[in-house]
């Protein structure tokens, strides 16, 4: 943020598993979660293991998340919006 001298628009609030987090316009859901120190937001179908970003560019599908009730969204691609309700995606997300 500092080295690029970013002056983002006003921050807004979203929730992650019911907890309020601050996000910046222009960030993806994944970037907003990383900025808040969250690195996992999915548990796998088989082992229930935690996962978050892996490839960062939409190829690996490890970062799947539930946003506003829609499961299987790639957090690294989806822009975060004010008031988004973000939830850990369990298994297949259904």
């Amino acid at each position: 943020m500092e080295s690029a001298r970013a002056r983002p628009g006003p921050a807004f609030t979203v929730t992650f598993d019911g907890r309020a987090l601050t996000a910046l316009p222009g960030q993806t859901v994944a970037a907003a979660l990383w900025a808040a120190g969250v690195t996992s937001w999915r548990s796998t179908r088989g082992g229930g293991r935690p996962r978050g970003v892996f490839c960062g560019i939409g190829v690996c599908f490890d970062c799947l998340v539930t946003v506003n009730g829609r499961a299987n969204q790639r957090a690294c691609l989806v822009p975060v919006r004010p008031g988004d309700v973000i939830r850990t995606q369990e298994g297949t997300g259904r």
Partner: protein
Amino acid sequence: MTERADLAVVGAGPAGLAAALAAAARGVRVILVDADGQAGGQFYRQPARALGARRPQALHHQWRTWERLRDGLEAHLAAGRITHLTDHHVWCVERKPGSSAREPASFAVHALRGPAQQEGVTVRAGAVLLATGGYERVLPFPGWTLPGVVTAGGAQAMLKGGLVLPGRTVVVAGTGPLLLPVATGLAAAGARVAALVESAGPKAAARRSPALAAHPDKLAEAVWYAGRLVRYRVRTLARHTVLEAHGAGRLEAVTVAALGRDGRVRPGSARRIRCDALAVGHGLLPHTDLAETLGCTLAGAAVRVDDEQRTDVPGVWAAGETTGVGGAALALAEGHIAGRSIAARLHGTAPDPRSWAAAARARDRGRAFSAALETVYAPAPGWADRITDDTVVCRCEEVTAGQVRTASGTLGADDPRTVKLLTRAGMGWCQGRMCAPAVAGLTGCPPSPGRRPFARPVPLGVLAALPDD
């Protein structure tokens, strides 16, 4: 929705941009389709506009070239010669053969509008350029599925695009030239880079030195990065590898060890480094799925092209890392040549290769350099033997190395397809993009082309709504 143009360019990275500019400057109407919200691709990835970065060049290298591309694109956009469809994920390109010389082949480029990806858009054009770049190869090791472990390019992409870091203390590991910009980029952005762990040895580079020394510009770049590493006090461990990532629920430390000449771990050399992020990568692989569905022949892992960047499917060109991994300068040269060739062919004239002689020289040099680099940065031998049986190899379907070994050893599967059918490795969301190299390494068979029906998952509603001409 349907859009029409003379040329559809898929991918707005260095290759696609150079091609779009060269073609548009010669009177071709271009539609540039890209999954991203902004032009630039991987190398010139920009922070989202709303982040208001006033010095995005702080995260970049060769910013001047980007400014030239950006200004050119803006001029063509304003003049209506190029249309840029951002947030459009292409899942398939269809070729409709022409009925006569007067009515040549045409193409339908099918995309999904992101991020919801529920709405289909089709671009129709007389020619297509595939400039979809590549993605990262990561070879598995115990702990590589822990949150906090990310691909090296992914860490870079999240930093350049979202101005965020994967953690406070980062280890950058694997092999390949990409690790240098990643380590220095993360450090410049404020991360503590605890180590740069490169499995290639300095001797490998020295042995190739005549081949590498023929590229003084590239050597100067390497020296520049070396200076940055010193400045940020990044310790480089050459001929070392990450043996294991540790943590409960998320990454807490990695164990690294020195490799002997034979690729084996040197006894007693293992040591633990505390970190909360690991950025790891073992080189890049070209995106070829759109080319494969079109029927383009591959050469190894990349799309095969001729001197004009034409694939063997008439009307389809390819440029940049789709045709082989070699960096942004090579992608620019290939894109420029493709754009000129396309313009000439669409105008019904034979292109004159002398008109792109400078780009052709840059392309030859770029390819020679990346061929030399490839021998330096090959993954360390023995990597597959170090994957423990309980290590998950297919991240999507949670298939372990042990299951893959059983399929190929006990059950006798001798090609990746059979392994896939027996274990489900490669059947999940990513369609094997992440596990194919590991499965190949574990079974000892060469990776086979993916044969993915679509480049992206497609909602059935979009398929059903396609026009059926």
